[in-house]
């Protein structure tokens, strides 16, 4: 019923929503959410191609790896954000501009 085009369309929408979130939101946690959207759009692509085009398991395995690594990356990212919050009492990106040359 739903062909490959549907899945590719949804993943493309997810991808651009992710990019829009990253560009527009100023809260660091919100930006991390945008990154997750992009990663999930890629994972969805892999599974869809695996099911409809290539008929092999490479895509499924790849998407599992993406989920695991996304979790690891989010954990490290949030840990650093927490440290930053403890020092500066803010997680607004516009405040993070001490490093300039």
């Amino acid at each position, binding site marked *: 019923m739903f062909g490959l085009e549907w899945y590719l369309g949804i993943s493309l929408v997810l991808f651009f929503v992710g990019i829009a979130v990253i560009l527009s939101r100023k809260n660091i946690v919100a930006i991390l959410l945008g990154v997750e959207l992009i990663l999930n759009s*890629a994972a969805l*692509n892999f599974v869809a191609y695996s099911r409809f085009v*290539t008929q092999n398991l490479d895509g499924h395995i790849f998407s599992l790896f993406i989920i695991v690594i996304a979790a690891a*990356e989010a954990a490290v990212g949030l840990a*650093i954000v927490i440290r930053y919050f403890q020092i500066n009492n803010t997680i607004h990106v516009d405040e993070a501009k001490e490093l300039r040359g």
Partner: protein
Amino acid sequence: MTVSLLTHLSFYLPEAIAILTMCGLLFVEAAYGMAERGRTLVYITGIIGMVLCLALLGSNVGIAPISLFAKSVVIDSFGTSMKIIMVLGTLGTFFISDKSTDIYENLKSEYLIMATGVLVGGMLLVSATNLLTLYLGIETLSILSYVMTSLKRKESTSQEAGIKYALYGGVTAGIMLFGMSHLYGLFGSINFADIAVGVKTLEGAKFTAALVSFLLFFVGVGYKIACFPFHMWSPDVYQGSPVPVTAFFSIVPKLAGIAVVTRVTMTFFSAESALGDVWSIFLQVIAALTMTVGNLAALRQESVKRMLAYSSIGHVGMILMGVIVMNQTGTNAILFYGLVYMFMTLAAFFITGFVVNRYGSDDHVFFRGLVKNYPFLTICFVLVLFSLAGLPPFGGFVAKFNMISAAINSKLYSLSFIAAINSVISLYFYIRLAKTMTLDQPDEETEELVEYTVPARIYLAALTIPVVVLGIFWDKIYKVYSAATIALGG
């Protein structure tokens, strides 16, 4: 099946040793702490591990390329030579971290553990011949790098650098994955060899789709080597990180990224590939912009770490020239440039580290008249700066000369011209620092440098001598590298 897996593992021993070193460091630190005795033990474990790794890599030099683990990695001379440079660089930053007070004393073991982890990721990246191993390598490299950046836990700048690194890194990795997923759909495989076959006969809509996917894929790799549109994070991260971490970042992740760009370019975009011409022009534009932007921005930097960050962006642009020529001369030039660049960067950051130890800042003014009290240190730094600028008879000159001659041999005249101009621009900011150290008057109350001991002087000499020697006896090392062919696909 089990037997063949064991044979495969025997070629993968250097990586296995690096992983074991990482675990060993964790155990030693947990068992003995970072007090006097534990600290020595941690450093000895790290150094022994790296030396073993070097020895095993040495035994892999010169063997015929071999594909391992269901064609997901390949062991070839190019990769092995690159790994040797990376392991040497890691070992070098171990010594820098020993002398630096920029890292908290009780976190030095963490630095060693994570640097070894990044090295493992880099080694995987260098030999990856499969989209999945490539992605795993990049992420192992990146995730540990974010932590290393924010190692100065109590300082806001370090955390800010970590956040910037993690956010840029996450976004570019996501974009790269999106490109990879479409490559998988277009070519039906994640193996480089299968994709390379598919690339040869592209046309029409598939051609455009593949080109866009490859460009998205390049975002992730380009971010790791900090080439032009994706270089914005690099100066901030370099300035915010502790000195040994900065030295590490400008060697290991960067060289691993260069190696993967070389492998990808030579596998997918050789002369018979449909995308070859477009990709070559794209890389030429990127290389020219990277070196120009890096060198021009370095001109007005007051922080020496930031200046070295921009200068390393300039060097990456230069190394990309070797990627574009896509032949043996190019890979030789890349390896030689990598080796010399490793020694120069280590020496430059080691010396900057002493100034940071003393004054807590790496601003230009703190280098004023350093020659009065520390003539040996200053002479070493001036030699290294001349080499970075590419003046004969130092290693940096030979590296740049080989790179430009490789480009001219492949008729890349305009790019070579831009590279030559950039060499001249870079002369200004290197010589400016040399002048600050030698001709300017020091402030009234010059203070003793911290940790500037006799072993530190010996280590400094050990870093500076290769820079000079490589400039004079470069043909010897070149003979070794001329056997370093790159294995395609796998």
